């Protein structure tokens, strides 16, 4: 069976099983309508919070999944927060970021001990930093998008991952977060990878005992700005 035949075989088998007549304009219209309108299904009540309650929920959920959180009033606080975090955890004062404009705006010179490298993740990275595009407080989940601004490999290769997110980007539900990304990327379009991250890497594959840092970062620290 060649490629086209295989495709036809599966599609014919489905149509045969569903007993579809040749004229299925109604089905086609139903499908097109759903894809275009992408109607929301039930959204849990707790995901509809807003303001301070939403922020509190986000922090509570993240900390419940073993991430740590700090607050920055503005981007100019970030260098000192990062330097203090690395010091307290006995980590090297070096990290890698992508080219996100946020990292260009941060006055790194205010914490002269810090060294920032740029580029995609390396197997030897101890610490990396990424900016999350949006977040859903519903489960304490950050949404990261691929690209030169925040390369995907920075999310998974280091021992310690630091994420920065603007307070205004923290939304309630997954529905809210996807709609925010639709605003950026347009309808029916996504970047190559969208990573939803809700804590550091873990496994329970040995006797159901949870161990942090299976393959991805052992620590996740989230800095909320604003």
């Amino acid at each position, binding site marked *: *069976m060649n490629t086209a035949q*295989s495709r036809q*075989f*599966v*599609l014919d*088998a*489905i*149509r045969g*099983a*569903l007993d*579809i007549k040749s004229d299925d304009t109604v*089905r*086609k219209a*139903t*499908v097109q309508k*759903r*894809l275009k309108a*992408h109607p929301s*299904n*039930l959204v*849990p*009540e707790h995901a509809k919070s807003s303001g301070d309650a939403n922020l509190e929920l986000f922090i509570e*959920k993240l900390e419940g*999944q073993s991430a740590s959180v700090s607050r920055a009033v503005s981007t100019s606080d970030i260098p000192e927060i990062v330097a203090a975090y690395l010091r307290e955890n006995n980590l090297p004062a070096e990290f890698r970021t992508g080219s996100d404009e946020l990292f260009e705006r941060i006055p790194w010179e205010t914490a002269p001990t810090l060294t920032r490298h740029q580029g*995609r*993740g390396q*197997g030897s990275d101890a610490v990396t930093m990424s900016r999350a595009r949006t977040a859903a407080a519903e*489960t304490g*989940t950050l949404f990261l998008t*691929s*690209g*030169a601004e925040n*390369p*995907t*490999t920075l999310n*998974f*290769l280091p021992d310690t991952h630091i994420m920065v997110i603007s307070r205004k980007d923290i939304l309630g539900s*997954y*529905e809210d977060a*996807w709609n925010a990304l639709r605003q950026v990327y347009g309808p*029916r379009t996504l*970047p*190559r990878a*969208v*990573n*939803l*991250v*809700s804590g*550091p*890497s873990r*496994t*329970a*594959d*040995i*006797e*159901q005992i949870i*161990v942090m840092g*299976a*393959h*991805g970062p052992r620590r996740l620290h989230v800095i909320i700005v604003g």
Partner: protein
Amino acid sequence: MKPQSHAFKANVAQALTNEPLKKALGGIKHGFVANRAKARTNLPEFEELRDEAKAVKEHTLAHLDLYLEEYEAKVSEAGGHVHWAPSAQNARDIILNICREADAKTVTKGKTMIGEEIAINEHLAKADITPVETDLGEYLVQIRDEPPSHIIAPAIHLTKAQVESDFRQLHTDLPIDRVLDEPGQLVAEARKVLRERFLAADVGITGANLLIAETGTSVIVTNEGNGDLTQCLPRVHIVIASIEKTVPTLEDANTILRVLARSATGQECSTYTTYTTGPKRPGDPDGPEEYHVVLLDNGRTEMLGSEFHDMLRCIRCGACMNHCPVYGAVGGHAYGWVYPGPMGAVLTPSLIGIDEAGHLPNASTFCGRCEAVCPMRIPLPKMMRQYREREYEKGNTPPLYKLGMKLWAFAAKRHRLYQALTGLAIPLMARLGKRSGRFRTFPLAGGWTRHRDLPAPQGKTFQQLWREKEAKS
């Protein structure tokens, strides 16, 4: 793997005397089962979400041809390739071809049950391509040359001591006197060993929990991050997924995800949920240069619209096996193929035939817990019963069993006779078993009493008790 489901009875006999297995399976109740119950309580909308998740899948299955075409078009638009595989052999050939064209020496793998179903590892190895499992549980069973024994916790049958012994035997370049007493030390060693494999791999193969037609996106959920390193480091990424993984929109994916992790591990969500759409874009510093999706049928279209149609809603959370008394006693290997527990008891005969897997639908007490916890409300006991009926019609039932059923049916259809017989037998059994309240042996019930005692009746039949209750009121 070659199915061993026909040997179910022998497999069970072996499993029941396996002490490390008993110890390992004992943890399920306090882990998965307790955590799922907590997750369900913490989300008031959980039952309603189950109904919605079921509705999403039913809508998708009724329009599956159209959503698959939409999905394919969006993948192509993003620069990816979709390959259709009617059979397991087709899928193996497609994957091997892609690996050969990429001149692959090693292939890293994220966890994929479809990969087990089509036995891709054996196929690649025969062609001198080394498959490396990267999910910790999958790695633990791969190095023992065993299949996974659970669909989300592949190494649940192993104890820490067994893992330590395997690591010492295999990782011989590490110091002999290293300490491997704690799971943390074992995980750290696996991390170190596998990190090198991730960086060296030419191709990465992952499964998919969902395929989204709206955007042409494949979704995986993991807690370890291994699936992500598998798909963002090598030059080529291959997704293998069965056709029923499709959902229409991102919103529909949300609904499934809200019940998936809660039903599986009891987490509100997995640590990583990753949405991948096509290969690396212009300007991207990382990601694969090629992105392939292999869509597998392998018997699914035959289930569509049949009496086993509901099984196509399954999202592979594993809740049914976590709550199954039979799985809890014998573990996953006894089932003899890829899918164990109640979902396996229905899916395995559907995919590889009743002649090979006819015993599996009998591996149920019909207690109904599997259906009660299934997030997609799949009527598993009903479908197992349908397979039992088929098996009976085919004449695969042992003669003694048939005779017993005939005798019982003869009496049951004549209610006066039935009541007379039970009215005699039950008080007699109650008197005989009064002292200990149970029988250690019983005529014609040796199969039962060999492994456990038969409880003695209290003295009256249900019908007698019912009549007394009626008379009182």
